[in-house]
């Protein structure tokens, strides 16, 4: 179906979407996102789930820039999200900065802190770097819980609701548009980044850092840049969580979150933007699905009631393990296989 496209300029050959089918698919996805709240009749729960997916997508793209594209394993995702969330929360709650302005500020602050904690990547690679970022995770959360004058310590930080005129924006329906607009911008900026020298340098560092250095890439500077760009988007995620939930607590940014996000990008597809979306959707919808399943099973096997929560947890783990065994390259690979199958359809061989 996609044969017969002839590009006559490098400009069109280098476009992000090179064929009409690719453009159609993207158009359909955007139309779906725009229509979704109305398709579900503005019911809060499905929109809430979509909001969770949108927020997680931004964070997953951010983490994927660092881990998937640049090859620097990070266990500090949760803490960097905390930096974004607390920066946005504190600015609004204590200094009255407008909520929309706190999102870019929080992103920049997180980018700066991410770059600082990226310094160990000069000497450390792979698992050793993971341990160094684990230290970042623990240090940042320790600071958050102990710097009571600023963060409120272990107590929750209450963030005043984001207002647009007299409209309270953090209802599920209204915040939906903010989240998905930012998710779209994040995806576009990231896609652009990886068709210029910056993105290529990141991938070069992941694939062959010595060759990258000899090709003229200042590896250390670009690693720090990868930490900064990645943390920028993670900071956006944190800021969105702060304003959406209206409350910031440190428990929401522990090491569990870092691991959850790593699982997201591994299951979705490392080094892929659509994979980040798939992973975010999978890791958000699967627990929700299992919870609903458990609830509906409750009446059927009364004797099993107390085990159902454990079964949910176990099946969550099981699905992830099966996934890694059956499709180690993630949901992105499945999606690519489907696309490739239909590339020559109906004349596939």
């Amino acid at each position, binding site marked *: 179906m996609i044969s017969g496209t002839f590009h006559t300029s*490098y*400009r069109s*050959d*280098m476009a992000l979407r090179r064929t009409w089918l690719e453009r159609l698919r993207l158009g359909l996805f955007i139309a779906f996102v725009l229509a979704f709240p109305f398709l579900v009749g503005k019911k809060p729960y499905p929109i809430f789930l979509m909001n969770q997916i949108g927020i997680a997508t931004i964070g997953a793209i951010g983490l994927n820039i660092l881990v998937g594209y640049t090859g620097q394993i990070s266990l500090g995702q949760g803490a960097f999200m905390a930096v974004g969330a607390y920066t946005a929360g504190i600015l609004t709650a204590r200094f009255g900065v407008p909520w929309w302005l706190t999102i870019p500020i929080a992103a920049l602050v997180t980018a700066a802190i991410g770059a600082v904690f990226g310094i160990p990547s000069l000497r450390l690679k792979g698992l050793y770097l993971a341990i160094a970022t684990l230290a970042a995770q623990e240090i940042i959360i320790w600071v958050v819980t102990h710097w009571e004058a600023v963060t409120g310590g272990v107590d929750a930080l209450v963030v005043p609701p984001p207002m647009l005129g007299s409209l309270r924006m953090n209802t599920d329906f209204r915040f939906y548009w903010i989240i998905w607009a930012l998710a779209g911008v994040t995806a576009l*900026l990231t896609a*652009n*980044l990886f*068709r*210029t*020298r*910056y*993105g*290529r*340098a990141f*991938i*070069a560092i*992941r*694939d*062959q850092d*010595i*060759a*990258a*250095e*000899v*090709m*003229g*890439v*200042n*590896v250390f500077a670009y690693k720090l*840049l990868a930490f900064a*760009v990645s943390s920028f988007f993670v900071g956006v995620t944190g800021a969105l969580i702060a304003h959406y939930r209206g409350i910031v607590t440190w428990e929401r940014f522990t090491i569990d979150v870092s691991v959850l996000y790593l699982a997201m990008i591994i299951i979705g597809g490392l*080094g892929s933007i659509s994979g980040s979306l798939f992973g975010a959707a999978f890791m958000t919808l699967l627990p929700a699905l299992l919870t609903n399943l458990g609830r509906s099973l409750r009446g059927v096997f009364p004797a099993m009631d107390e085990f159902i929560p454990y079964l949910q947890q176990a099946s969550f783990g099981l699905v992830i393990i099966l996934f890694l065994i059956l499709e180690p390259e993630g949901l992105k690979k499945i999606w690519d296989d489907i696309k490739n199958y239909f590339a020559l359809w109906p004349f596939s061989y």
Partner: protein
Amino acid sequence: MPLQLRGFRHPLNGSTLEPGQTQLRVENIHLAFGGVGALAGVSLEVRQSEILAIIGPNGAGKTSLLNSISGLYHPQKGRIVFYNHGREYELTRMKPHQIAAAGVARSFQNIELFRHMTVLDNLMSGAHVHMRAGLFSSLFYWGPAQREQIAFRDFIEDIIDLLEIPAIRYKKVGALAYGLQKRVELGRALAMRPALLLLDEPMAGMNTEEKEDMARFILDVNEEHGVTIVLIEHDMGVVMDISDRVVVLNFGRKIAEGTPEEVSKNPAVIEAYLGH
């Protein structure tokens, strides 16, 4: 509009010197790893637009010499001076990425490509040092960033033509055959528009036909574009045919230097290769 012929519209040579001028001077370098000596006082000169072959038995220090030139190893004694852009670069004090920006490109003995990128992206990444668009305009792919990418794509297509690899442009490098990977690696080094090109065994593991192709590409780059080439090679037939001068290393020392004919008659060389 007049018909425009494709191929070689862009110069590949990044040197500002005239042919024959001294481009690189290696001055008495000593390199040791702990107690193991790799180079013991090697000196040599490379002149603009020549092909200089470095030969020698295994462990003679050939790759160590190349790694010292491209800044991956740091000799304990001696200097390496490189002339370009009207300046004198002291390579022994520079970092590899700075040396690349000065105009020294290289390929590796064991292919070190970016395996998950396409051939095109590998070549585009070779032009890294020449790209100027900032992070902000790159994120938005605004005017300058887009124009720059398109301009370099046009340049890269020349290299793709030169190396006869148009059919594999969009292939992932990791999936290519060995001989093609070697070719792409040469292309990536050329994309840097080098003044000096260091090739570490560009024909290792190739069959005769592939070697002929590679020799032709190297000669094209040298003769049509005037790029200076320093290459390490074990195939004596190739070395004798394509190089202008030969330097012979053995146990970290230079034992001979001269034209291929001179070197092949040198008793020290014959002894190093054949033994007593």
